[in-house]
C-alpha cells in the first residue's frame, strides 16, 4: 500500500466538498490526481482527507464567450486541447497544452488542478498570468474571482484559503489584431520546462509594437509577468535588434538555478525563447491568424 491512510470523501456537490474541506484539519482536492497521487504515493503528502470532486456534475464544461475561454474544475488538459471550439476562439491554449506532460497524463490532469498545484514550471499558470486571467473560487466565505496576478505566491503555493476550491479558470480573449506564441525548452518533450515563454503581441497600424504581454514559467519561484521586457518592446519596430535588447531584460528575473540548468544557462534559454516567441507572435499577427 503506497499512500498513508486518509478519509476519502466522494463529494457530489461543490458545497459538500467545501464542507468537507472545513471539517478536517488538512485536506486535499483530488482532481486529475496526476500531481497529487504521486505525492501521496511518496507520502510527501499525508492529508487527513482526500476530497474527490470527480463526481460533481457540471464542472467539466468548456465555455467560449467572445473569444474568452472558461474551463470548469474537471476539464482535462486533453479535453481542452482537442476542443475545436476552444481552438477556434483561442489557439494559444492548445499550443501551450501540447507541452504539458504526455497524453495519458493529459487524459486525467485538469487545467484548474494545474493552476491550484502552482508548479513554478507549469505552462497553464503562465498562460493565465500572460492573459491577465482569473480563477473563480468557492469557499465557506462564498464565491470570488482571484486574478492571476494575486493568485501565485510561490512554487506550489497559491493565496487561496484552505477551504477554497477553484471551480473554474477564465482565459481572456486574445486582443484583436494580436499574434500569440508559446515556446519552451525541456530536456524531453512533456517534462516540466527549463523555461517557457508565453507571448501575445499586438502591432499597431504603423507596424510598431502597440502592446505586449509576456510571461514565463520555470525561471523563478512562480509564473512571472515579464513587465520590463514588455515595456521595452512597446513602441519599437520589433526588429531583431529591438527584440534582442528587450529580451536581455529577462536576466534579472531568472532566479531558478535548479535541475542542472544553472542561472547563466537558463538566462540564455529565456532570452532565446523570448526572441522566438515574439517572432512567431509577430508572424501570426501579420497573417491575421489571432
Amino acid at each position, binding site marked *: *500500500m*503506497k499512500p498513508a491512510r486518509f*478519509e*476519502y470523501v466522494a463529494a457530489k456537490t461543490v458545497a459538500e466538498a467545501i464542507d468537507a474541506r472545513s471539517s478536517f484539519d488538512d485536506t486535499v482536492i483530488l482532481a486529475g490526481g496526476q500531481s497529487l*497521487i504521486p505525492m501521496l504515493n511518496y507520502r510527501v503528502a499525508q492529508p487527513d482527507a482526500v476530497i474527490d470532486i470527480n463526481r460533481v456534475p457540471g464542472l467539466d464544461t468548456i465555455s467560449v464567450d467572445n473569444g474568452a475561454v472558461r474551463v470548469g474544475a474537471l476539464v482535462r488538459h486533453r479535453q481542452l486541447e482537442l476542443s475545436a471550439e476552444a481552438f477556434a476562439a483561442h489557439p494559444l491554449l492548445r499550443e501551450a497544452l501540447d507541452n504539458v506532460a504526455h*497524453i495519458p*497524463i493529459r487524459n*486525467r490532469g485538469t487545467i484548474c488542478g494545474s493552476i491550484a498545484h502552482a508548479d513554478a514550471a507549469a505552462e497553464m499558470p503562465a498562460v493565465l498570468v500572460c492573459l491577465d486571467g482569473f480563477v473563480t473560487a468557492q469557499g465557506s466565505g462564498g464565491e470570488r474571482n482571484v486574478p492571476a496576478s494575486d493568485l501565485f505566491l510561490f512554487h506550489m503555493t497559491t493565496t487561496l484559503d484552505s477551504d477554497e476550491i477553484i471551480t473554474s479558470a477564465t482565459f481572456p480573449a486574445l486582443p484583436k489584431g494580436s499574434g500569440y506564441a508559446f515556446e519552451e525548452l525541456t530536456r524531453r518533450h512533456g517534462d516540466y520546462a527549463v523555461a517557457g515563454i508565453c507571448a501575445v503581441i499586438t502591432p499597431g497600424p504603423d507596424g510598431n509594437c502597440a502592446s505586449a504581454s509576456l510571461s514565463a514559467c520555470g525561471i523563478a519561484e512562480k509564473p512571472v509577468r515579464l513587465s520590463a521586457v514588455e515595456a521595452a518592446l512597446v513602441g519599437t519596430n520589433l526588429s531583431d535588434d529591438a527584440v534582442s535588447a528587450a529580451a536581455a531584460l529577462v536576466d534579472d528575473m531568472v532566479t531558478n538555478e535548479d535541475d542542472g540548468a544553472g542561472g547563466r544557462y537558463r538566462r540564455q534559454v529565456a532570452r532565446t525563447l523570448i526572441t522566438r516567441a515574439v517572432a512567431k507572435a509577430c508572424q501570426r499577427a501579420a497573417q491575421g491568424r489571432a
Partner: protein
Amino acid sequence: MSKMHVKMTVNGKPVEGLAEPRTLLIHFLREDLNLTGPHIGCDTSHCGACTVDLDGKSVKSCTVFVAQANGAEVTTIEGIANPDGTLHALQEAFREHHGLQCGFCTPGMITRAHRLLQENPNPTEAEIRMGISGNLCRCTGYQNIVKSITAAAEQLASMKEAAE
C-alpha cells in the same frame, strides 16, 4: 479503515471487490484480480508500465484510486488478444520485430499502442513517438517498438480492407 465496495468491468468481465480508499487501481488489478500484466515501475505516472485503458482512454493505473474506477470499463494487456485466443496484431508485431527485450515495459507499451491505433489508425513515425512518449523503455532504444507499431498498423489496415 473501512473498506469500500467497488464494481467495474475488466477485460469485458464484471468484477467486484472490497478495497481501502487508498488502494490504487494498479494494486487492485494485480493483487485482487491477479492481473499481473500491468507492471509497477515508478508509482508516480512517469514510466507508463502500468498503463491501462479506463473508459476508452489510456491512463496510468498507479495514479488512479480504485474508488475512482468504480463503474468504469478497464482493459489491461490481458484483454488485448483476439477473442479466439490468438495474439492481437500488435502482440504479433512486437514478437516479429523485436519490440521487446526484457519485457518489463511491454504490457504498458502495447496497451498504450492499442489505444493510439484506435485514435489514429495510420500514424506517422513522429506521431507514434509522441503517442508513446509517456511509456519508458530501458532496453530497446524504441526503434523496434516504433517498427512494431507501424507494422501492426499496416496489418490492421489490410485486415480491415480484406473484411470490407
